[in-house]
């Protein structure tokens, strides 16, 4: 028996499905041929470690992503949506409860934070933008003046998805998180509210709403949202206080050895402001001292040194994003 013939029989021999005479021939060859003998040892070893390869599961939003495509296929390809027209009517017409207005909290509603994904797909850098004109003119939430509708912002490249935080006008003490996308593709999300997870997806013309009860007095509710659109995935973290307060209050405190996440939690709790942040909040902020500061100043003081900036977008609602 030559080496090639012998090696062809390894599997049958290993699995014991070889006929006896062939088996004996192979054993003779293995006894004589050191190379084949060594290869057979490796062969057995290869099989044993193949069996030990760990099972790796899909990303958590995998199923939601599949179902989003299934649904959108069923509905036909969603019509191309001019994103600046999208859903604004509804965003802008959210009722403000008289009671809230009365205590001087102005509008708590509305801000829209979006992730803009720029091509090339795999290596693109996600950046945040305001869906309306940026920074210097924070969204005026009840402004329905269509003349001030945002300018088209290369909608073809826009793939944004995001959140609007509002108070539920029907049940006090409940936040309403509205998830929406401007993407032409379905945006799958997974949302984790204090350990309870939901997944789903939104389409451009079909936002989703999740009602989240405010936390107990003196604590903070943290909500994580993971988005995936096509092959994109991004995270947002929302800090919700037990009660929203006016933005003019001042506080004094110092922090040491805290992460961005710790600081946002503290500011959320101490000032009673909601904060939506994205990205990695695990960065360490060394030492910061905040003296009789408003939430704007406190956020600036703590975040500027780690390359983050905060915007007040409506009363009591802030967004945090990396400085570009």
């Amino acid at each position, binding site marked *: 028996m030559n080496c090639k013939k012998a*090696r*062809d029989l*390894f*599997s*049958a021999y290993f699995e014991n499905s070889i006929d006896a005479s062939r088996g004996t021939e192979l054993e003779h060859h293995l006894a004589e041929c050191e190379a084949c003998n*060594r*290869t*057979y040892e*490796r*062969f057995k*070893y*290869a*099989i044993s*470690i*193949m*069996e030990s*390869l*760990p*099972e*790796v*599961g*899909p*990303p958590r939003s*995998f*199923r*939601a*992503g*599949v*179902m*989003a*495509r*299934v*649904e959108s*296929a*069923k509905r036909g390809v969603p019509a191309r949506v001019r994103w600046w027209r999208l859903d604004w009517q509804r965003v802008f017409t959210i009722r403000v409860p008289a009671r809230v207005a009365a205590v001087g909290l102005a509008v708590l509603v509305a801000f829209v934070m979006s992730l803009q994904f720029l091509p090339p797909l*795999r290596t693109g850098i996600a950046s945040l933008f305001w869906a309306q004109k940026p920074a210097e003119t924070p969204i005026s939430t009840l402004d329905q003046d269509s003349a001030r509708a945002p300018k088209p912002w290369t909608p073809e490249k826009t793939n944004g998805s995001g959140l609007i935080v509002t108070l539920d006008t029907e049940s006090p003490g409940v936040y309403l998180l509205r*998830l929406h996308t401007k993407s032409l593709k*379905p945006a*799958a999300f997974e949302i984790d*509210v204090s350990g*309870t997870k*939901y*997944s*789903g*997806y*939104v*389409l451009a013309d*079909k936002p*989703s*709403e*999740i*009602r*989240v*009860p405010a936390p107990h007095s003196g604590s903070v509710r943290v909500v994580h949202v993971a988005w995936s659109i096509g*092959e994109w995935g991004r995270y947002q973290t929302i800090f919700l206080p037990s009660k929203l307060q006016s933005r003019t209050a001042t506080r004094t405190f110092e922090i040491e050895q805290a992460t961005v996440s710790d600081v946002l939690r503290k500011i959320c709790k101490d000032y009673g402001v909601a904060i939506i942040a994205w990205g990695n909040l695990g960065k360490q902020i060394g030492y910061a001292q905040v003296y009789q500061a408003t939430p704007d100043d406190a956020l600036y003081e703590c975040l500027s040194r780690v390359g983050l900036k905060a915007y007040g977008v409506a009363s009591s609602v802030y967004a945090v994003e990396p400085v570009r």
Partner: protein
Amino acid sequence: MSERSAGAKAGSFGDYEQLGENVLIERCKSGDTAAFDEIVRRFEKRVFNYALRVTGNYNDACDVAQEAFIRAFHSIQTFRGDAKFATWIYRIVTNVYLDERKKHKSHPTISLDDTIELEENSVTRQIEDSTPSPDEILQTKERMRVLQRVINALPDYQRIIITLYHVEHRSYEEIAEILDLPIGTVKSRLNRARLAIAEMLESEPELFG
């Protein structure tokens, strides 16, 4: 807390978990997407893991696995009850993968680091029980990394067969059906793949000594 969403799982979701495969497939054929959702739930792990071992990289595995489910959904009418759904879906994943490979003629860029990154936890978890030394953990990780590289280096069909047999634990008969090949061919290709791996491991004596 309540949820209203285009894709929210409805209250009847729990019921689907009780249904048998055939009933679910009948419901899919009549256009019930919730039934398909349950099918995806049952098979996503297997399909993804198979796609991962065959493509050798996490991103491509996501694409291939998703595309396979979409293809399955669109051709569910052609699924006949005489095969197992698992066999059918493996066949679809394989075809999606081979089609993708044809599209991008060249060998796929294999980003092992992706895979390793994601596998780290499972590797660590798997060997945690016997409280190994850090050296042993490192070595196990390194071995898995090398092993995946070796599998990636195999020709497509060998890689597919060896994955179906050793990772997905399919029988020769089932592999023959998935790949539409005679059993003899499956056996000889599996033997060749195992030999190829054995030979490649010989060049890593410090890990596989």
